């Protein structure tokens, strides 16, 4: 090790160590920490308690059969965002943790993700839907196991549409109809079309389907080069700009982004969100009628949606990565009946209400008629097959797209100029990028 590197390492270790405040204990036989935002849940909401219990059950089963114990550590999503970097930087990261696709590449490039493939049967690997696993793979390695797939769709309020003289047969078939309807339905305190407006990974996630529907993309999968300065991205950016300019979409989301409150109060007619809100509405507004439809494409375009979802990862520099990997695989990635049943329970409408990431889990849920509800049926049969995995772009790529999107959507900037600016930023970054495949 060079003196320069040693000095750097020492300074960084001392610095980040000082900043760290979250120890996870030490010692060879200490329990493995599992950072998550589900369990043990401090909430009283029965549904959140059920999700917490699901995690607790998986951990209890493991702990009763294995000497290496697992200990869940609860924190909110925002807390995890802030504590994880500090914990990893000080060499005190969690042994097991949850990450979204948007975060995957940063952790993978940092070399902290344990390959789970050696612990999995080939049958179990093949059991995963390819798109569900795609963004967690590098070659034959599997660096995270998704527990769900979360497709995006357009939720609508049929009562509100009906009161405006719009039947369910007149649902928008393309972008232009969507914008027209959105503008028509935006009167008083009522909003026609809710698109996400807050800058962040989530907004980009909701933007990608519209982008993909044009045939455009951020990065070319083959060459790994940016292709954002093109007709497709310009059209998708323009859609977001026109949605605001036409008055169809508000600059801030109704009810602070709470779809239950907004739909219950008839504040919103159409709302782009994911499958998780089916269960949210069914549980919290059981008397409220709502419908779900695929995102309409541009005229002549194809329907495409984005698939989100969280994955369990193992810290390769943790206390016992092998045991942690066995635990993760036993819960999520085994052909064992108990694993399939536990996965099915998670994705069933009684606990999380997401689309499963594995064929055997999907079959188990189908056998239980778990997705008989019309909304789930639309998700499973019409929307999921059009899904593409949420990209795993690193922060600079995310930021370039986000800046362009925000500028066009909320500052009235020219889509062509912003696409060009983003492209230049991406090209500059990728000249020196060294790491895993971007897409």
């Amino acid at each position, binding site marked *: 090790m060079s003196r*320069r*590197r040693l*000095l*750097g*390492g020492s*300074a*960084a*270790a*001392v*610095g*980040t160590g*000082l*900043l760290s405040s979250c120890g996870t204990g030490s010692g060879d036989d200490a329990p493995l920490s599992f950072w998550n935002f589900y369990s043990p849940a401090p909430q009283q909401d029965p549904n959140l308690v059920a999700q917490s219990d699901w995690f607790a059950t998986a951990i209890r089963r493991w702990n009763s059969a294995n000497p290496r114990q697992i200990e869940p550590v609860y924190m909110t999503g925002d807390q995890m*965002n*802030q504590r994880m*970097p*500090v914990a*990893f*930087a000080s*060499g005190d990261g969690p042994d097991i943790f949850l990450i979204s696709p948007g975060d995957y590449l*940063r*952790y993978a*490039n*940092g*070399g*902290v993700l344990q390959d789970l493939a050696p612990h999995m049967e080939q049958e179990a690997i093949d059991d995963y839907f390819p798109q569900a696993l795609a963004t967690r793979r590098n070659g034959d390695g599997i660096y995270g196991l998704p527990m769900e797939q979360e497709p995006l769709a357009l939720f609508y309020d049929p009562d509100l549409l009906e009161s405006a003289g719009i039947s369910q047969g007149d649902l928008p078939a393309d972008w232009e109809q969507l914008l027209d309807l959105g503008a028509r339905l935006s009167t*008083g*305190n*009522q*909003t026609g079309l809710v698109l996400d*407006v*807050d*800058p*962040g990974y989530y907004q980009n996630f909701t933007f990608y389907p519209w982008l993909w529907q044009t045939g455009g993309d951020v990065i070319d999968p083959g060459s790994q080069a940016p292709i954002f300065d093109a007709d497709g991205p310009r059209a998708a950016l323009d859609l977001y700009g026109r949605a605001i300019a036409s008055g169809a979409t*508000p*600059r*801030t*989301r*109704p*009810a*602070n982004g709470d779809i239950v409150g*907004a739909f219950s*109060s008839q*504040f919103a007619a159409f709302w782009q969100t994911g499958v998780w809100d089916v269960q949210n509405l069914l549980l919290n507004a059981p008397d409220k009628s709502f419908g779900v439809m695929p995102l309409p494409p541009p005229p002549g375009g194809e329907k495409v949606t984005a698939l989100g979802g969280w994955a369990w990862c193992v810290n390769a*520099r943790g206390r016992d990565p092998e045991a942690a990997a066995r635990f993760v695989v036993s819960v999520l990635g085994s052909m064992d009946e108990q694993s399939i049943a536990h996965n099915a329970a998670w994705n069933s409408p009684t606990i999380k209400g997401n689309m499963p990431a594995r064929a055997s889990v999907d079959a188990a849920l189908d056998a239980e008629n778990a997705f008989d509800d019309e909304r789930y049926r639309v998700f499973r049969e019409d929307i999921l097959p059009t899904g593409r995995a949420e990209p795993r772009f690193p*922060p*600079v790529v995310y*930021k370039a797209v986000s*800046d362009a999107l*925000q*500028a066009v*959507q*909320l*500052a009235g*900037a020219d889509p062509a100029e912003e696409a060009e600016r983003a492209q230049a930023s991406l090209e500059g970054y990728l000249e020196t990028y060294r790491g895993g495949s971007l897409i």
Partner: protein
Amino acid sequence: MSTQATTTAPRPATERSEPTRPQPLGRRQRETRAALLFLAPDALGLIVFVALPMLLSVVLGFFWIDGFGNVDFIGVDNYVRMAQDPQFWNSARVTLIYLVVLVPLIFVTGLGLALLVQQKFPTVGWIRSALFMPYVVSIVVVSMVWQFMLTDRTGVVAAALAWIRLDGISFLGDPRFALGTVIVVTIWLQMGYYMIIFLAGLQDIPGELYEAARIDGARPWARFRRITLPLLAPTSFFVLLTSMVAVVTGGLDMIFVLTNGGPANSTSLLIFYIYQQAFLFGDLGYAAAIGSVLVAVLLIISAAMFVVTRGGRFTHDD
């Protein structure tokens, strides 16, 4: 090298002097020692928890750190990148506007409210408490409440404006208004705190001075200009200095909840950009470099303020 025998003869035992007794400290020395002892715990805390991390932050600014233990010395690359980073300059511009507008407004509202609640009238105690109340509430809670109130179309503010036919303004969703909205909310949040500080300063001004001025026929504005303002100078200095530091280094919680740096980066203060780089993007070295520049600028401004105001005394005599 040469060796020399010592030429100093040993002192005879009989010439040994009496052990010297320590001279009692003078009053000034005793006061100095007491002052040092009182200051020591604070100084130690500041060194360990402020100065040392600041120093380490400067060091980290010369490294590439990915947050996973991978570190490389890159010299001044982070600083070069900063100079070429449009988002850094945008955040610097937003921070400057925020500072230049907010600090004077905080000063004026704090002083104005202090002058108001300095008067003796029924319920003044309640009014003082009410004005101070926002300061003791969690910033996250305050920000969420304001976010609800300022939501387009359905928020209370939008409803009130629609009632007087001023609808269509998006306080948090329009880049033209978002920073102004954050400034207004910040003033509302902090004015009570600075009001209390000014109130303490006002109550230190001897009433006889006002009485004498009144007898001499000085009008209220003249009394304010000739007595209140000059005698409030040390308090004003304290308020200006602390509010400046608070404005530049604070505000993260509110921005995080209220706007998340948007719309279109219009509220992306430098402190928020540092947070993004460190915690969302995992670029700890770059975040440390920006932080170091921010601290350096603050130190320069603070030092200039100290020099210009002679340490806040505003006097020309020692």
